[in-house]
């Protein structure tokens, strides 16, 4: 930590590493030029390690004069070297030149540290009248009158004035340094803050991703568990149903009135339980994406007719009318016959459950387009390609549902009537399975409903494309 300062430490302590990294040399030169124009004094600014950062000077006549003489040139070089290497420690250093001139070397301190120095001069002390002996003796070629004439051109400064000029320049440089340093720190800090913010976000994202992966794994475990349990439950249940049926059929001897009734109940409840377990199994298969569809072209009207035939006995029993509205020449639907029957039966079953006596159920099929992409999505009109499709509708004149219920009915285990004493049975899996089956067909399912008027489910499925 002692010597090799890194930029990290500079930022931590808000320190200035090197004058030249912060200060704009052009600006510094401008300040020096202005100083020179105002006071006629040469000025140079050097960094801590001696790099010349700004230099505005005029070669004085006396300097040109002595440089023409061999010994004079050598002495001049010595003086300049001395000035260049002078390091004022806290206080200014005054360096005399053999010509009688002076150089004033001032430290530049910033935040308690010396970061550089500036040199004013050469100038003549105001009281100088004659050519100093040091100049006359430097070279045998020095002529008193010529030297005096050359010296006359040199600016003369009183010691206290020199101090005031240096103080002024120090203040200007300090202000320049402060502004530059602040700008420098601001930009450094900005970048560092953005980087730190990014690092934090990236870390959080990685943690979230990890948690998400773990949850996905758990979800898979849950589905596996569901599948296994359903399967294991189904095996003994099949036996229970089988033996109940055999008892019912009188294979083990005739049953008396109440005995038959009890066995029938066992068998009926067994069937119900089996249906529930089968839906659980379906759901878990769908969740795992393990369900494979056996797709083939299917006639929409034939599908609906079949459903009506199945539900007709229950409809008659309940005094509900059930009818089909579908043209014979509709294009074929591209679907898995078993799964599509499951979808439509489920919807018809729901309609049957919720339609009161004297109500009606209508099964409809119409030709339509299936447009991919989310409604309102940017550029949807370009991105979504319309495919020919069939829309099936199951409309009832039942109790209907409230708007807030509509958004949740496709969730697994959701029941519109959540009470334990609810009128209609089921595990709340039907519609969630229906939705997943429709999605597996790249189809869409929607529901519209009005309380006391009825509910319409519409399932849109891709038709078999003939013209492609």
């Amino acid at each position: 930590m002692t010597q090799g300062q890194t930029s990290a430490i500079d930022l931590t302590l808000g320190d200035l590493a090197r004058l030249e990294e912060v200060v704009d040399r052009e600006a510094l030169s401008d300040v020096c030029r202005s100083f020179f124009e105002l006071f006629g004094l040469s000025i140079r600014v050097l960094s801590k390690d001696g790099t010349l950062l700004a230099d505005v000077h005029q070669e004085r006549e006396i300097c040109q004069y002595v440089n023409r003489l061999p010994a004079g040139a050598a002495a001049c070089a010595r003086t300049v070297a001395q000035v260049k290497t002078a390091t004022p420690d806290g206080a200014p250093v005054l360096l005399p030149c053999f010509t009688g001139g002076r150089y004033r070397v001032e430290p530049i301190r910033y935040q308690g540290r010396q970061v550089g120095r500036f040199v004013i001069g050469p100038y003549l002390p105001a009281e100088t009248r004659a050519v100093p002996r040091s100049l006359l003796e430097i070279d045998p070629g020095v002529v008193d009158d010529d030297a005096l004439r050359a010296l006359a051109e040199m600016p003369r400064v009183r010691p206290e004035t020199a101090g005031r000029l240096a103080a002024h320049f120090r203040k200007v440089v300090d202000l320049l340094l402060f502004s530059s340093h602040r700008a420098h720190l601001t930009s450094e800090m900005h970048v560092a803050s953005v980087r730190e913010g990014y690092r934090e976000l990236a870390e959080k994202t990685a943690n979230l991703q990890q948690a998400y992966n773990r949850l996905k794994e758990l979800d898979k475990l849950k589905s596996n568990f569901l599948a296994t349990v359903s399967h294991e439950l189904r095996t003994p249940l099949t036996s229970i149903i089988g033996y109940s049926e055999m008892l019912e059929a009188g294979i083990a001897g005739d049953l008396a009135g109440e005995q038959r009734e009890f066995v029938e109940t066992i068998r009926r409840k067994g069937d119900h339980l089996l249906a529930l377990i089968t839906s659980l199994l379906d759901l878990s298969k769908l969740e795992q994406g393990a369900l494979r569809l056996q797709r083939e072209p299917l006639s929409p009207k034939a599908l609906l007719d079949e459903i009506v035939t199945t539900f007709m006995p229950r409809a008659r029993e309940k005094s509900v009318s059930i009818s089909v509205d579908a043209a014979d020449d509709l294009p074929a639907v591209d679907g898995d016959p078993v799964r599509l029957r499951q979808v439509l039966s489920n919807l018809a079953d729901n309609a049957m459950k919720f339609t009161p006596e004297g109500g009606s159920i209508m099964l409809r099929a119409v030709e339509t387009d299936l447009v991919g992409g989310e409604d309102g999505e940017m550029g949807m009109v370009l991105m979504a390609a319309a495919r020919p499709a069939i829309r099936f509708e199951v409309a009832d004149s039942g109790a209907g549902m409230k708007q807030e219920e509509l958004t949740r009915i496709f969730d697994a285990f959701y029941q519109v009537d959540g009470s334990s004493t609810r009128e209609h049975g089921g595990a709340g899996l039907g519609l969630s399975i229906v939705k997943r089956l429709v999605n597996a067909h790249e189809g869409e399912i929607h529901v519209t409903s009005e309380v006391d008027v009825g509910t319409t489910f519409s399932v849109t499925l891709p038709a078999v494309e003939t013209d492609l």
Partner: protein
Amino acid sequence: MQLDFTARELTVKLVYYGPALSGKTTNLQAIHKLVHADASGRLMTLETRDDRTLFFDLLPLSFQAGAGLSVRLKLFTVPGQVIHDATRRLVLQGADGVVFVADSQRAETRANQRAFLNMKENLRENGMQPERVPLVIQFNKRDLPDIRTDDEIDALSQKSPEPVYKAIATRGTGVVETFLGLMDRTWLHLEKEHGLEQKFDLEPSRFLKEVRHRLGFTRRGES
């Protein structure tokens, strides 16, 4: 802390932490006003918007502490607003001591707590143990109505492991005491960690006297 043996130069970083608008910048402004002009550099404020600190404020102080030791103190404030957490963490890096500036108003109690937890969290994130960082707590804005009472604060500070100061930073009251309190703890801590006394031949009491003297806090510090 940064130690340069060849230059006999010690740089210490002190950070003013606290919830938004609790008076961190005002503390620095007050110190800047009260300190000897030749010991203080310009108060640097990095980017503000609506009088709120965006990055940090920096007040550099420097003086000769005797025994040829040159001391540089860097006083920083963090931005208090919640969204500047990354910047707060950066400013807190390498802090040798922390002043927690709390807002005395009752309504700000939760904000104080949240900022304090955030400070501990950020110290930890920076690889520092919060319990080991020299810390003093300042209850600022003692002149406002509906504040936590003196009795309440005094009773609590009896049990507090860190010194508690009361201040009205806008008037400069309690600001120097808080600063010197932290300086005291920080020097003792640095002394323990780095053996500064032996290295620089400076007793803690003499060092603190020098700090007060050089910064022009003599009367205040000793009162």
